[in-house]
């Protein structure tokens, strides 16, 4: 399993400075993390403008919430949680509750391996075409390496639902890649 966060130690000093109101330190944190946060928002929203808005909102919320950030936690994960929340707030619809399935224990695996190499562009298009709930689970677990429990917590859904959504995403993805996505 790939860890979603690899820059925590580097961030500690910057976080402490930012906590004390140093916006330059926060800008360095922004520069360090914006690509990953944007990638996450873009894949969840499927809209570059909405993704940019969510990134801005997420970093502003993070700045305001810095005093509540616990230094022992992963800054990257904390930031992603805020970003996911921002995307979900923006959706505002009932779609978060899409397809509730009981905990399927056999769907633990979060990695998706293809039989043969797939073009990145084609794969991104296939992910984009997935239903929202399946896409969210796939992006967080499959692409960003979060465990089901963490992803479910971020998305505000049950762990079982997250597993089922990922399972569903896996099937749809393979099907769409075989059919040429669209």
């Amino acid at each position, binding site marked *: 399993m790939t860890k979603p966060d690899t820059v925590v130690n580097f961030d500690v000093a910057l976080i402490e400075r930012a906590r004390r109101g140093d916006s330059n330190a*926060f800008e360095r944190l922004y520069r360090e993390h*914006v690509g990953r946060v944007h990638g996450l928002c873009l894949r969840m929203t499927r809209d570059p403008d909405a993704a940019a808005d969510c990134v801005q909102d997420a970093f502003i919320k993070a700045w305001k919430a810095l005093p509540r950030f616990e230094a022992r936690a992963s800054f990257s994960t904390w930031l992603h949680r805020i970003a996911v929340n921002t995307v979900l707030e923006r959706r505002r619809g009932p779609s978060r509750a899409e397809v509730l399935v009981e905990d399927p224990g056999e769907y633990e695996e979060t990695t*998706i391996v293809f039989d043969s190499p797939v073009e990145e562009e084609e794969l991104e298009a296939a992910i984009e075409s997935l239903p929202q709930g399946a896409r969210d689970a796939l992006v967080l677990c499959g692409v960003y390496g979060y465990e089901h429990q963490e992803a479910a917590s971020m998305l505000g859904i049950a762990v079982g639902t997250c597993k089922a959504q990922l399972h569903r995403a896996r099937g749809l993805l393979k099907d769409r890649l075989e059919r040429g996505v669209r």
Partner: protein
Amino acid sequence: MTTRRVKRIDELARDIPPARDLWPAIAQAIQVDLSMKAVPARRRVGWMPALGLAASVALVALGVLIGRYVGTQGTDQLANNTQQGGEAGMVKASLRDAEYRKQRDQLLVEVQARLDTMSPAEREKVGASLATLKRSIQEIEAALGRDPANALLQDLLVSSCQEEMRALTAVRDSGHQEI
């Protein structure tokens, strides 16, 4: 996107930089936040007089805004009155404020008509931007309630109100081009 081939989904790039630099807007919001944090918190018992003062300051600030925004006759007199801070100045500022509110209300009606012609996605995007501006103004006014004499906050209020008027005008005057 590149045409790189991947065997596993976690080989996809996690970092996708945004097309434009998003930091300036974030930095602006941080500056507002820092200004508000610089305002000392007041005890609850002091709220009512502070709110009264805040309302007065807001009127003066908005009066100045009208002077700048409308750019019609009487601007100098308004500025003088505002600087003097006398009762007569306040009354004139209030009148200006009424004029400002009338113009803003009219603008809001026209903006709503324009929003109604937009696609839902566009409408949501523009609406969110306007709501952000409105929220900023409300936050600054709340901070002024705690520190009515804070010149930085007064300036921020004026510039934020100007920004809102500019944004509303831009939305009203927009055709089908991107706002």
